[in-house]
């Protein structure tokens, strides 16, 4: 059975509404190769939590996920555990966004945006090399150094456009009844 409703919101355009205490898709984007960014309007103080899945097909460029379009060079921090070609390491640092791996990488973030709190995320990722080799397996914790309400989640290739087929899905925690 297919229910006759669609709770998707794309760039803030409502297409019906489902009141349901769970996670609902608010962005389902597949690039045609001409976009240099994509964002979705949100209300972080209301939603509180997001699930983000990105398959990034850009070969040599990562993507930054940014909140409120803040591209400050040191607005975001991370702590990661990283297996790169069999070499396992850990590191801490700052970036201008939540990091999204390149090279057909599959990236998943759980993001919290509680009112008055710093905005945080937990990321899991794998990155493709060639043949049957994955060169990277990766988990990371991230923070956006702001307690302001989040009104947008944006995705920005480090340079140039998305590659055709790059996919971004965002689920938002939605209302109680």
């Amino acid at each position: 059975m297919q229910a006759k409703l669609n709770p998707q919101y794309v760039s803030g355009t409502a297409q019906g509404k489902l009141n349901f205490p769970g996670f609902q898709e608010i962005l389902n984007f597949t690039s045609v190769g001409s976009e240099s960014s994509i964002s979705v309007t949100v209300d972080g103080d209301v939603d509180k939590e997001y699930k983000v899945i990105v398959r990034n097909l850009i070969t040599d460029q990562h993507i930054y996920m940014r909140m409120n379009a803040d591209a400050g060079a040191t607005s975001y921090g991370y702590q990661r555990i990283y297996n790169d070609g069999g070499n396992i390491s850990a590191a801490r640092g700052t970036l201008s966004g939540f990091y999204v791996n390149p090279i057909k990488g599959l990236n998943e973030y759980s993001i919290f945006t509680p009112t008055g709190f710093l905005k945080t995320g937990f990321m899991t990722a794998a990155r493709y090399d060639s043949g049957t080799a994955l060169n990277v397996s990766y988990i990371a914790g991230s923070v956006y150094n702001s307690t302001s309400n989040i009104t947008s989640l944006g995705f920005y290739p480090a340079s140039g456009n998305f590659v055709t087929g790059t996919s971004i899905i965002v689920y938002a925690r939605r209302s109680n009844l």
Partner: protein
Amino acid sequence: MITGMLSGLVNGVQQVVFDYEVTGSAVSSISTGDIFNGDVDGLYTIITLQVATASSSILHFCPNGDTNANNYGARGIYAGDTTVADSSYNGGTLAGLRLSYADANKVSFGVTTLYAKAGVVRISNGYFARGISGTTVSYLWVTGSMWSNTTDNIINGTFTSSGTNLINVGTRIIILKSNHFTGGIPTGIITTPKIAGTWTRVGSTILESAASSVTFSGLDGNTAVCYYLSMSFKSSTTAAPAVRPNNSSTANTYGHQTLFAQNTALTALRGGTRNSFLIGWNGTYSGYVTQADLLIFSKTGFIRPSIYRFVENISGTSVEGISLCGGVWNNTSDNITSIVCSMANFAAGSQLDLYALYT
């Protein structure tokens, strides 16, 4: 008060499309039938409780039944006691996407996400806790896997293991798919407290003032099958939240295998003497934030395995630590009717949500 459950597939949510438990006798493989349309669905989440009849049994997922090991690769990190090591294979070894390993009559528990659209190699990410017995969690894995096929739409799948009849009684596999229907102009509003086969929030607390515990009651672990707890919290004191099914605080009934990083230091540790799941840690500065979540298999009949993770003691742009843990509550019989989260101080604004998966 609105009651009832909306059934049928609903756009914009992830929903269970496959739920299989091995009963009677062990099997060599499990087929899903033609339930997928990977190019449309895109995203799948696979939750696995694996019980094996022999040691080092791998549970694979083979899209479209492809068991050719030359088409799969994996990279991962495993933690076993104090050891952290690489666990990676290029083609020729793994006969499917790696979901978990299990050992004879021990439990493994994991969750895997697969992005299925064709056009490029298909990649999955996952975690699993392996070799769970009593309060011992032998190993913890982080794993990415890939299927080199770039063209074929995924329409079905087969779960296999590394030998004959290795998938033992009690193994349970649940698949959620992302629903994307096309056609028509969607309008209108539907309000429902529950949608069959989805993660449904069954409890939510945002503290208006500090508290030392939050209780989610009225649960039925046998009906829900799995619970997912998510938290973002601060604390005015140095503290770690203790999470307890049924508020059970008996010593030596909780075990864990932990992988932890703090700056460049990487640590693994195992333990079996706790009286709770310890999920996260917050330092002495009240402005610090910790994010944590826990997935637990709640059905009776098995010890209750879990995967939990946290990003802790966050201040400014400094993330002090990250942890991934496989955990177990060594109780096979008590139905989970509540989950209690306790800490010396959950500061005002802390948010705790509990979701149930109704299959």
